[in-house]
């Protein structure tokens, strides 16, 4: 005879509903409220003020530079991040563990320190004779440094888990190395590469500390959006700063939402 056992868990610490409530409240205080305040600040001046602020020549130039640089950085990361992840997973060499832990350095290093480091290496007193200060190259370089880990860290575990038998199966079916890479490995890595790119892109459009030191912040030339926002706040033009911030916020949100869609789509075929 079967006896139905009650399925209720008796070990729960908090009464039902308290934990989610707490999480939502915390999230609201830390993230949602400030964002709402920002949006509020923006709409105070009305739609035309917003449009004017965003399309002002210096603001538009800063925004364009930021987006272009972030796109370039995401693309470079896609290629070299995948390559480095590949080397770290598939190749054996001395000092691999050290290299592997160095990857996270840009996460740990204060961005202003990163900026200073780059300035020392690629500044006017460069020991290797390479001065890129006040150029757009400097912007890209600083962003590349800051976003290095994203693609590597998202591709690495996927590559590690990738079923090597798939590659053997493809080989036994007549596929050479490059074909195996293109038709078997790459499609399986792509979601991870794209999500790493998206994170790198989102990070790059907001980067401040490492860029501000080395780019020179020349309006219409090397001034990125975050620095532009900072200078507008400094000169008491808060409406303009808020408008540009809302645009960056909207872009970040769009990227993150697409990212979760990509992840949902790619997990559909797993296992």
């Amino acid at each position, binding site marked *: 005879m079967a006896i139905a056992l009650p399925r209720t868990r008796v070990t729960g610490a908090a009464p039902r509903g308290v934990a989610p409530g707490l999480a939502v409240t915390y999230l609201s205080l830390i993230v949602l409220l400030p964002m709402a305040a920002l949006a509020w600040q923006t709409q105070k001046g009305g739609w035309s003020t917003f449009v004017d602020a965003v399309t002002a020549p210096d603001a538009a130039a800063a925004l364009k530079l930021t987006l272009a640089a972030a796109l370039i950085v995401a693309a470079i990361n896609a290629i070299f991040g995948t390559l480095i992840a590949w080397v770290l997973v598939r190749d054996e060499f001395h000092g691999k563990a050290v290299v592997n832990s160095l990857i996270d350095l840009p996460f740990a290093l204060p961005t202003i320190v990163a900026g200073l480091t780059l300035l020392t290496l690629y500044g006017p007193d460069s020991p290797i004779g390479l001065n890129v200060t006040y150029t757009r190259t400097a912007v890209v370089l600083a962003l590349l440094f800051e976003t290095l880990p994203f693609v590597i860290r998202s591709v690495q575990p996927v590559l590690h888990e990738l079923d090597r038998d*798939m590659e053997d199966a493809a080989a036994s*079916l007549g596929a050479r190395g490059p074909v195996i890479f293109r038709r078997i490995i790459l499609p399986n890595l792509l979601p991870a590469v794209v999500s790493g790119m998206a994170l790198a892109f989102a990070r790059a459009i907001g980067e401040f500390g490492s860029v501000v030191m080395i780019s020179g912040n020349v309006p219409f030339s090397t001034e990125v959006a975050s620095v532009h926002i900072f200078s507008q706040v400094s000169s008491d033009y808060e409406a303009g700063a808020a408008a540009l911030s809302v645009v960056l916020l909207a872009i970040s949100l769009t990227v993150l939402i697409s990212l979760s869609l990509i992840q949902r789509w790619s997990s559909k075929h797993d296992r």
Partner: protein
Amino acid sequence: MAISVQNVCKRFGDFVALEDIALEVPAGSLTALLGPSGSGKSTLLRVIAGLEKADSGDVFIGDIHATPLPAHRRDVGFVFQHYAAFKHMTVAKNIAFGLEIRKRPRAEVAERVDELIKLVQLEGFGDRYPSQLSGGQRQRMALARALAVEPEVLLLDEPFGALDARVRTELRAWLRRLHDEMHVTTVFVTHDQEEAMEVADTVVVMNRGRIVQEGNPQEVYDHPADEFVMHFMGHVNLIGDAYVRPHDVEIRVEPNGTTSPAVVRRVLRLGAQVRVELVVDGGEPVAAALSRDEADRLPLEPGEPVFVRPRRERRFAEPEAEPAKA
């Protein structure tokens, strides 16, 4: 096509995976490589496929000297224990892969894929992804994928190892039928002696990187070359220095001069078969296997005194250096 393996050696660091292997697989046969894990059977299969490079020795597939050929030029179908499904492709795309690599016309590919889907009984599953299939279905898909390019030989590495018992039995019978229809030279690796005996024409028993015995299944079972094969081909009792299979242990109520007294310890009724665990006089445990009818005629209760006698026994002249029982 026949496969010929000559003097193949392979080491992984200090571990000797294959030691001077020589094997002839006749064209159109179905051969099982049987052995415990670490015996080198999978490595041998992978060397034949070109997925592993032998340190020395040669592999011929038909008349072709395959040793210098990489895997993708060997025309070998390979099936993996864990299916190795291309999980980002549909079933139809998986099966079509080899044909697409060979740049066959699209209409021909579609036709061949349809044919194979029917052959492996996956009608209606062509547009599904591997994650939507059961283990047995995935392995049938993998088999279709391997057969699509009409390989000279088909190699299967523990093909049913990841499946549950019922599906495994079904697929074994199905593989045997498939082979009888297609006659493609087939070698499969297994650690399950029952599977080897049920499916294969020839059983090749491997142990520690060497081939210990080859022959048809009955031959290998009845005339094991050494203690290892004796143990590996099925449960066996060691009484003194003689090996006796459980079904060769006769249980009697009365002694007849050649019997030894024993006591029943446990009786296991396993459907058609009854397994009896006894303790012989000297304290040695002995297992006997009886049919139900035989068992019903005997007073088999734990603690009951009986008499046992080996109907058939086997002694090996040179005992192995180390203890025979693992």
